[in-house]
């Protein structure tokens, strides 16, 4: 089980108040987590990454275990603590604008 924490605006859009829990068939990577997230909450399609290219939106960041994973390869394995559910995978709207 993977725990995902969404930014406030995407929580509202997905109509969830707490963290999201996902069951993944494949090994957890950034790409497989986002695949599962979008399958469970189709309304999030296009809000985190491009719907066709799957390129991350410019002001979206990924963190886990106090590390910035934003620029990791999308198919790189996530930390064991994320895979085990001990630590959440954080999707963050970058601090920009006003």
């Amino acid at each position, binding site marked *: 089980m993977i725990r995902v924490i969404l930014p406030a*605006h995407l929580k509202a859009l997905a109509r969830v108040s707490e963290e999201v829990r996902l069951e993944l068939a494949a090994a957890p990577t950034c790409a497989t987590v986002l695949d599962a997230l979008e399958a469970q909450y189709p*309304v999030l*399609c*296009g809000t985190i990454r491009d*719907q066709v290219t799957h390129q991350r939106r410019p002001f*979206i960041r990924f963190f886990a275990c106090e590390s910035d994973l934003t620029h990791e390869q999308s198919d790189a394995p996530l930390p064991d603590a994320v895979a085990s559910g001990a630590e959440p995978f954080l999707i963050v709207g*970058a601090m*920009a604008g006003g």
Partner: protein
Amino acid sequence: MSGVRLLVGTRKGAFVLTSDGKRKDWKVEGPHFAGWEIYHAKASPADPDRMYASQTSGWFGQVIQRSSDGGKTWEPVGNKFIYDGVPGTHQWYDGTPHPWEFARVWHLEPSLSDPDTVYAGVEDAALFRTTDGGANWEELSGLRKHGSGPSWQPGAGGMCLHTILLDPKNASRLFVAISAAGAFRSDDAGTTWQPINRGLKSEGIPDPNAEVGHCVHRIAMHPSRPDVLYMQKHWDVMRSENAGDSWTEVSGNLPTDFGFPIDVHAHEPDTVYVVPIKSDSEHFPLDGKLQVYRSRSGGNEWEALTNGLPQSNCYVNVLRDAMSVDSLDECGIYFGTTGGQVYASADAGDTWNAIVRDLPAVLSVEAQTLA
């Protein structure tokens, strides 16, 4: 009893303002979609409870919301706006080729007859259509693939398709306007398009016969006379008698002919409204006085409407989609400002009142007349 509902899009959410036919007391509900930019929201003429809203964010992209109960509840629908084929390039600000990239939906225009059909004007400029209530969107790519497309260039606010007019007497005829490409017309339901910019004169375009390149801010029509179009251009207020085939300037005695919105009285096809703004470099009213100008002669002769509007220290702007009229017997007219005020007149502009004063910057106002 009759009434009016205003759908107000702002930088930080949508608001729904309702009143009875007297239009004196207003109920303000919102914000819906708090924190998101709502570029535009509009109800279907064919089903007053069916509404669509463009919800957008620089962080999270585009969402389209649909309501089927008059705005009480909303549900996200399809947000996949994919250009048809290989998108190609248009001109960037510096004149270099730049790939077409979807940014947001500026304007949603529901069909006059089918609540499930809606047109969407987007940035980078293109026209999309849904026929299934927003689940799927298909580009009407004949517009973007018009031969002039590679020469289109963005205006300061982006290369947006911001105006969509549907001809109520001819279902095959549509008009759109793009900043800064100009105005276009289709006579075959959106399959093919022709520029309709003859007669426009723009600083920086030395060729008086330039097919495209004009920064059209808004066009408007009266439903009883759809061949007569009014245009607020970057500078100049224009009128066409022939569905855009040619234009003549009708700025007349306006104190400045720069502005963004233009609209037409619901019952008087020759009564037109604009909000003059000082200049292209100073987007606020002249001398700090907020004035709507009305022409009862289809342009050229204009009168200032000031009763109830601030006449000192007012430095707001009124954006292109932020003016609308109702169709009650005494035509009501409404506009919102970048300062968050929404002003209403229940007597065709003679007197004004602020319905609400402290919303986020207003991007759009749509008036819906309720039976």
